[in-house]
C-alpha cells in the first residue's frame, strides 16, 4: 500500500499504466519536462522518454485533435488541459470529433483517450482557473465524464478511464489535490465508470455530491447527524453515464433529496439529478428535491469567491430545510 494524496495517486496511476502499456502517451502544456503546472506528470518524461511524455505546443485544439488521430492509430493518449477554463479552444475537437468518431464510422474508428483537466475553485487563482463545466460535457453524447473525490478513487477511476474504449473527460478537483492522503494499492485496479458510491447510508435524506464539494458536504452531514438526522450520502463519481439506479433506489428509501455542486446553478448538473429523482421516485417525495449550488454569476476572482460557492454552513442550512420541510 502507498499513502498518497489525490494528485500523487493520479501520477501513480499514469506511471503504473505507462509501465504496463507502451501505447499510452501523455502530453499537454508543460506536461513533459517540468511535469505539469500541478506536477501530475512529474517524473514521467524522465522515466518513459520524450516521445511518451512531452510538452505540447500551446494550443488546446491541437492537443485534443492530435490525440484523436493518435487514438485512431493505435495509441492511448492521456492529455492534459492545464485548467478546465482553457478547454474551450478544444471543445470543437471534443464535441464534434472525439465524441462522434465511433458513431460517424459505425464503430470502424474509435477514440479511446483521456482528457484530464483540473477543475473548480477555491485556490485563489486568476480568472478562468476555477470553472466547473461537467454539465456541458455530460450533455454531449459520446463522452464519459468522471470526477474523483479521493486518492483511492482517483487512481482507480483513472485506470478505468485509460482502459475505457471511449473518450473520457477526467475532471480533477484541484482544491483537494493535496488536501489529504489515503492508502492506495500499488498495482493495477479499476473503479468502474458509471457507478456511484454510497459514502454512508442513511434514512431521512439522500444527498448527492462529487469532487471537491464532497468533503464540505460530509462536514455538513456530520453536523446534521449530530442533530439526530440520518443522511445517505452518495459520491456520484461519474457524471456521465450517470448512475440513476443508485440515486433512485436511495430516494425511494429516504423520500428526500438534495444535490450539492460547485457548478453554476441554472441549466447545471443539479437540474439533471432533480429530473432523475422526479422520473424515478416522484411518489416517494416528501419534500421538493433541492439543489444547493453556486450562483449564476461569473466565477468571481478570489476576493469574491466565497459569495459564489456553497459554504458548509450554507449547505447545513439548506439541507436542514429539506429535512424539516
Amino acid at each position, binding site marked *: 500500500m502507498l499513502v498518497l494524496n489525490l494528485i500523487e495517486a493520479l501520477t501513480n496511476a499514469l506511471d503504473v499504466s505507462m509501465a504496463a502499456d507502451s501505447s499510452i502517451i501523455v502530453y499537454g502544456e508543460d506536461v513533459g519536462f517540468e511535469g505539469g503546472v500541478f506536477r501530475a506528470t512529474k517524473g514521467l518524461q524522465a522515466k518513459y522518454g520524450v516521445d511518451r511524455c512531452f510538452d505540447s505546443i500551446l494550443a488546446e485544439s491541437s492537443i485534443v485533435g492530435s490525440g484523436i488521430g493518435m487514438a485512431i492509430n493505435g495509441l492511448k493518449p492521456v492529455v492534459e488541459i492545464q485548467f478546465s477554463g482553457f478547454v474551450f479552444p478544444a471543445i470543437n475537437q471534443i464535441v464534434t470529433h472525439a465524441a462522434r468518431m465511433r458513431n460517424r*464510422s459505425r464503430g470502424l474508428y474509435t477514440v479511446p483517450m483521456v482528457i484530464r483537466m483540473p477543475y473548480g475553485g477555491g485556490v485563489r487563482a486568476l480568472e478562468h482557473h476555477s470553472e466547473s463545466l461537467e454539465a456541458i460535457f455530460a450533455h454531449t453524447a459520446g463522452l464519459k465524464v468522471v470526477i474523483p473525490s479521493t486518492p483511492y478513487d482517483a487512481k482507480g477511476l483513472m485506470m478505468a478511464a485509460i482502459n475505457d474504449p471511449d473518450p473520457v473527460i477526467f475532471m480533477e478537483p484541484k482544491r483537494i489535490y493535496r488536501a489529504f492522503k489515503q492508502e492506495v494499492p500499488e498495482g493495477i485496479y479499476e473503479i468502474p465508470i458509471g457507478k456511484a458510491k454510497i459514502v454512508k447510508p442513511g434514512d431521512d435524506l439522500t444527498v448527492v455530491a462529487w469532487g471537491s464539494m464532497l468533503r464540505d458536504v460530509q462536514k455538513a452531514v456530520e453536523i446534521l447527524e449530530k442533530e439526530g438526522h440520518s443522511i445517505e450520502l452518495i459520491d456520484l463519481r461519474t457524471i456521465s453515464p450517470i448512475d440513476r439506479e443508485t440515486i433512485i433506489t436511495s430516494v425511494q428509501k429516504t423520500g428526500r433529496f438534495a444535490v450539492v455542486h460547485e457548478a453554476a446553478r441554472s441549466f447545471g448538473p443539479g437540474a439533471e439529478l432533480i429530473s432523475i429523482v422526479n422520473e424515478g421516485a416522484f411518489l416517494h417525495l416528501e419534500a421538493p428535491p433541492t439543489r444547493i449550488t453556486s450562483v449564476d454569476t461569473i466565477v468571481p476572482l478570489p476576493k469574491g469567491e466565497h459569495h459564489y460557492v456553497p459554504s458548509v454552513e450554507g449547505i447545513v442550512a439548506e439541507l436542514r430545510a429539506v429535512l424539516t420541510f
Partner: protein
Amino acid sequence: MFIEKFDPLKDDMIQILDPSGKIVDTANMPALSEAKMIKMYQTMRESRIIDEKTLQYQRQGRMLTYAPNLGQEATQVGSASALRQTDWVAPSFRELGVWLTKGAPLDKIFLYWFGNEEGMKMSEDIRILPVSVPIASQLQHATGLAYAAKYRKLDDVAVGYVGDGGTSQGDFHEALNFAAVNALPNVFIIQNNQFAISTRRALQTKAPNLAAKALAYGMPGVIVDGNDIFAVYAVVSEAVERARRGEGPTLIECYTYRMGAHTTSDDPTVYREEMEVDPWRGKDPIDRMYKYLVAEGLWSEEQEDAFVRETADRVKQTFETVEKSGFTPLEDIFDYVYAERTPILEAQYQSRKAFYEKEGK
C-alpha cells in the same frame, strides 16, 4: 526535385502536363507504368461520372445534399495515387476522387451521402477517416495519425486535405505547426478551388498564395497546377517520400477550380458569372490527360466510350441498390454512441421501440 527548391514567395506553379495535353516538363515527368496511368485516368473519369449522375439523382429528388468534386479530379486522384495503401488520409467532405483511388466501395460512399452513417464503415484497409464536416478540424487528426505511425515505427504517412477557405481556421495553423515541430510524416494538401461556398479566395487571405503559409511553420510549401495530374502526382510523391524518410511535413497548394456548385444546396449563379468559369473549362484535368493518353496510344475513343458506358451502368445499379436501403435501423443510432449502450441509452432505446411497436410501425 521540387520541394526543397520551391520558393512560394515567387508565386510560381509546377506544371508538367499542359492544358493541350503536352508534357511541358519532361525532366520531372513521373515514371508511371502504363497500367497505373490508365487506372488514374479511369478513376478521374469514374469520379466525374459519379458526380454527374449524383447531381442528376439529386435534382430528381432521389438524393440528399451532395458536394461534387467536379474539376478537382486531378488534385484528388493525382495526390491519392501517390500514396501506399497503408498511408492514412484525413479528408474533408469533397474528396470523392481520393476515396475511389484508395478503393472505397461506391455503395458505401453513396450510402453515406444518402444519409446513413453505415456508409462510413469501410473496410479497415481503406485508411481514410470518415468525412469531416467542421472545416480544417481534420488536419489535427492527420497529425495524430502521423505521430502514432512515427511512434510505432511504421513508415506510414498521413495526408490531410483542406480547402482554400479552410486555411483561415485556427485548426489549420495549429495542425501545421504541431506537425512541423515534431517533424511528423504529414502531407497537407490545400485544394484551392478558389471558393469557400460563395466567398472568394482573395477574401480569405492577403498572402500571395496559400503555399506561402508554410513559411510560418518552417515547412516547405509548393504550388502545383491542380488540374495537372502528373504534376500533382509528382509533387505529392516527393512530399510523401520526404515524410516517409523522416524529413517532416510539406504543404502543397493544388491550384484548381470548383466547376460546380458548392453542394446541391448552393446556387453559384448568385455569386459568379458563367464568363468566369469558362476559361477553366479549357483547363479540364480529365480532357488534358485524355489527350495525352490518346496521343501516346494508351487510350482511344472506343475504350473511352466503353468505359463510360460500363461505369455509368455500374453507378446506376449501385445507386439503385442504395436507394432501396430505407431507413437507419433504430438500434444503429443507439449502438455506436459508446462501445456499450449505457443504461440511459438502453432505456431510451426500449422506450422508442415499445412506442413503435404500439403504433404498429
